[in-house]
């Protein structure tokens, strides 16, 4: 890899004003593809989810998936867009072996949704409004796997394998207007925008929007202009940036790279760039001169899409609470500060905590378990919270057992560990591992007596008024009961038996 000189971030921003454009592709979670009845299920055998239509066989014709259109309208409405009363699909003509028809059915100058905005919240609470140019419907391509080369890219490969299962899966492409005025916060804005968009898409229920699965992919277009100038600089287009962190890093890297090139008297080439997760850098892809010509024309095989105003209004009424507003409400309901709320959000725990409280747990308990024990486990095992094999209802049950005194925190952690290990639901784990708090006063009394007898010196200290020393005896009792005693009750009993006020 060629070494690229970078300007320092601060120096870059001292001279230049970044302008960004973000293009996000979202794979819709429809059951069937955009133009045929094939399943959209992922991770199936190669080419098993195909038919004459999505393979582009001679004679086959597309038919629009109504749920796909509905999803596009919902996204448009949630992004405060106008919804087209009449629009068409268009053919985007270019050649690539993973595109069966050698044109992509997309939309060109008549997108289904246009002229909207999305308010995103930055980490310090500031709201930044990102203007939306358009959201349009299109189909995904198949997937190429280049074999035999060192990089997995086509260069140097001996052959390529084509899987058309993805060909024809509905995509919505959401394009921002140029994002100006973010200054040094441009990378943060980019990340916050994609994060907010992802939350929005999930809240709408139109896609799971999992970036790591490629269900949501972001292109970061960026240019710099000297402070005080109006005209945009030449942009680079960093393709397929597929995590929130990467979006921020890609924007930051490109700001520094552009500044270095410009400061050294060079010019920015309009090109696509590949992003590299391992070091956050980008490298040159293909040059995009303006001669690239997709020969768009209206798709003659599809009739225009003309969503009635009544339908659009009906969909508008059914829109869920917007994620930013919901977060604000939950933050207040839970009584947490901005920083903690952000942590919960970053951990992907909001919905899980809500589901846990819905299952009957107090919100502080729900937060405590998801952000504590479970977050730790997720971290250690490299999973996201929602991938853990534990349900909100199970977490709520653990919280209930703690509240009733049947479990203490230490035992509760063991119960969750058992649930995560697949030993069954919380009650089963309690049963199997014998984890109930020892509440039998007789048995507990005996254990306390034994602990006092075995630690006479400490007992004397306590009798002498050193109440703090009780901790050692509590520890002994807990050890003797294998942790199954309620520590607070043990302490009470010890003090009682030694005739000391607690």
């Amino acid at each position, binding site marked *: 890899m060629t070494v690229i000189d970078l300007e320092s971030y601060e120096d870059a921003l001292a001279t230049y004003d970044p302008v960004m454009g973000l293009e996000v592709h979202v794979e819709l979670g429809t059951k069937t593809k955009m133009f045929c009845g094939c399943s959209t299920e992922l991770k199936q055998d190669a080419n098993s989810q195909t038919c004459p239509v999505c393979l582009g*066989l001679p004679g086959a014709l597309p038919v629009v998936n109504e749920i796909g259109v509905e999803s596009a309208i919902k996204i448009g409405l949630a992004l405060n867009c106008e919804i087209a009363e009449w629009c068409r699909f268009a053919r985007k*003509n270019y050649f690539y072996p993973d595109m069966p028809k050698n044109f992509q059915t997309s939309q060109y100058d008549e997108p289904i949704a246009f002229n909207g905005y999305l308010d995103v919240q930055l980490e310090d609470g500031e709201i930044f409004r990102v203007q939306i140019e358009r959201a349009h419907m299109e189909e995904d391509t198949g997937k190429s796997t280049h074999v035999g080369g060192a990089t997995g890219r086509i260069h140097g490969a001996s052959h390529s394998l084509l899987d058309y299962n993805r060909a024809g899966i509905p995509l919505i492409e959401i394009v921002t207007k140029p994002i100006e005025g973010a200054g040094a916060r441009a990378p943060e804005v980019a990340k916050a925008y994609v994060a907010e968009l992802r939350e929005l898409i999930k809240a709408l229920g139109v896609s799971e929007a999992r970036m790591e699965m490629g269900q949501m992919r972001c292109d970061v277009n960026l240019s710099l202009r000297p402070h005080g100038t109006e005209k945009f600089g030449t942009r680079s287009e960093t393709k397929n940036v597929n995590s929130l962190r990467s979006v921020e890093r890609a924007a930051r890297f490109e700001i520094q790279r552009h500044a270095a090139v410009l400061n050294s008297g060079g010019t920015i080439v309009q090109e696509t760039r590949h992003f590299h997760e391992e070091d956050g850098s980008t490298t040159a892809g293909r040059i995009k001169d303006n001669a690239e010509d997709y020969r768009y024309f209206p798709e*003659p095989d599809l009739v225009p899409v003309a969503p009635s105003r009544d339908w659009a209004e009906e969909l508008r009424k059914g829109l869920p609470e917007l994620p930013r507003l919901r977060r604000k409400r939950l933050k207040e309901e839970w009584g947490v500060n901005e920083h903690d709320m952000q942590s919960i959000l970053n951990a992907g725990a909001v919905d899980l905590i809500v589901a846990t409280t819905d299952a009957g747990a107090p919100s502080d308990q729900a937060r405590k378990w998801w952000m504590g024990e479970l977050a730790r486990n997720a971290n250690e095992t490299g999973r996201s919270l929602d991938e853990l094999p534990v349900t909100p209802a199970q977490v709520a049950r653990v919280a209930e057992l703690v509240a009733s005194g049947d479990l203490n925190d230490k035992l509760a952690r063991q119960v969750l560990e058992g649930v995560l290990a697949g030993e069954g639901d919380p009650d089963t784990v309690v049963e199997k591992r014998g984890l109930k708090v020892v509440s039998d006063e007789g048995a507990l009394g005996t254990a306390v007596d034994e602990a006092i007898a075995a630690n006479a010196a400490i007992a004397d200290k306590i009798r002498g008024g050193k109440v703090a020393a009780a901790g050692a005896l509590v520890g002994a009792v807990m050890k003797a009961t294998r942790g199954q005693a309620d520590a607070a009750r043990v302490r009470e009993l010890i003090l009682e038996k030694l005739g000391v006020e607690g």
Partner: protein
Amino acid sequence: MTDISTIIKLTAAQIAAKIASGELTAVEVTEAHLARIDAIDEKVHAFLHIDREGALAQARAVDAKREAGEKLGPLAGVPLALKDIFTTQDMPTTVGSKILEGWVPPYDATLTKKLKAADVVILGKTNMDEFAMGSSTENSAYGPTGNPWDLTRIPGGSGGGSSAALASFEAPLAIGTDTGGSIRQPAAVTGTVGVKPTYGGVSRYGMVAFSSSLDQGGPCARTVLDAALLHEVIGGHDPLDSTSIDAPVPPVVEAARNGSVQGMRVGVVKQFSGEGYQAGVVQRFNESVELLKSLGATIVELDCPSFDLALSAYYLIAPSECSSNLARFDAMRYGLRVGDDGTRSAEDVTALTREAGFGDEVKRRIILGTYALSSGYYDAYYGSAQKVRTLITQDFEKAFEQVDVIVSPTTPTTAFPIGERADDPMAMYLADLCTIPTNLAGNSAMSLPCGLAPEDGLPVGLQIIAPAMKDDRLYKVGAAVEAAFVEKWGHPLLEEAPSL
């Protein structure tokens, strides 16, 4: 046992009736037509593929159904020649192109399914200009088809195989597709009947696309009634074709059984005359207009100025759409693959395959269309052509405020000799002068025989044009004209064709 020469002269309606009554079996009928094909198709070359076993199996199934007392479709057991542009799971589908040589599709076109479901016996696939681009069938990669009236002349195109099969009595029914006249012009030059239904009237699913907004499958036959019976079988809404019209098939059979022009207003368009029209064609057309008058029609002269621009608009729209539709033929997934010796890139293999697999006319139109859609030229070419299309549609709308149907010669000349226009694309394009406006506007039209041109003794076609979804008017008028002509001639026109 009825002899072969009698069976092959029967109309589809007659065959269906005789099979239904038990006078003939479907197997007898199928064997008679296969024998006819065996005897003459070497000379005519109407067929690219003959499905002897499949046809006989279908015929046996029809006979078994009849014996079991099951209900038979209106065309049960009637043989049909299918244009090689519709996908068939049990036969190759080449579209007359080397690039699809040997390709057996994994699915049946909706039209193919409907034919099979109606117990029609598909004899095989017929020759055509490659990808339906042409007016003579000379652009077929598999050699030309002869016109049964004179084997040295063209049978029309692109559906010359289907029209020749009808005119040579190899089949009583055939299927064509009409993008700019490919059903009607072949019908005209072979003395047969062909109908381009309203756009969206017959499903395009499984019909290999040339120009999606113009392509329309339709019935071909030797009589107006037979065409109507076939139209009813293949027509109707198809959820797999989003441009298919969600409405019942117009009452075409009823109209064909009740031919009349009494009290109808019939338009004659000024633009369908003048330079380039053969004298004998004009003469037969004028006689047809007189005939219509004598049958009780009122003739109205019409001016449709935008029709003069139709040919130009067509030759921008059709190539533009074809340049995109044919992009999929890249040697990757099906069909021909040339030069894949392990040393070449996918791009090189695609280029070599296309060089070898596409004929000159196809390449010409892909290049034309690619150019017309290019950024910077789009508005001047494709965009302008779409505007002309709107004007033509408006001219038709205005015309149909004044008349019920329009009539014209189907084609300016009779069948020209094979080879005469092969190197002159512009001369070839003029063959579709009268048929193209209907494709651009999406309404319906029919061609039926109106006599022989005195100077060459070859058939002349009369075109009848009706508004969209008023296809039944074509049959009502067509049946009246056909009856009057047959009465006048004393026999159907094809009786005068040479026996091959």
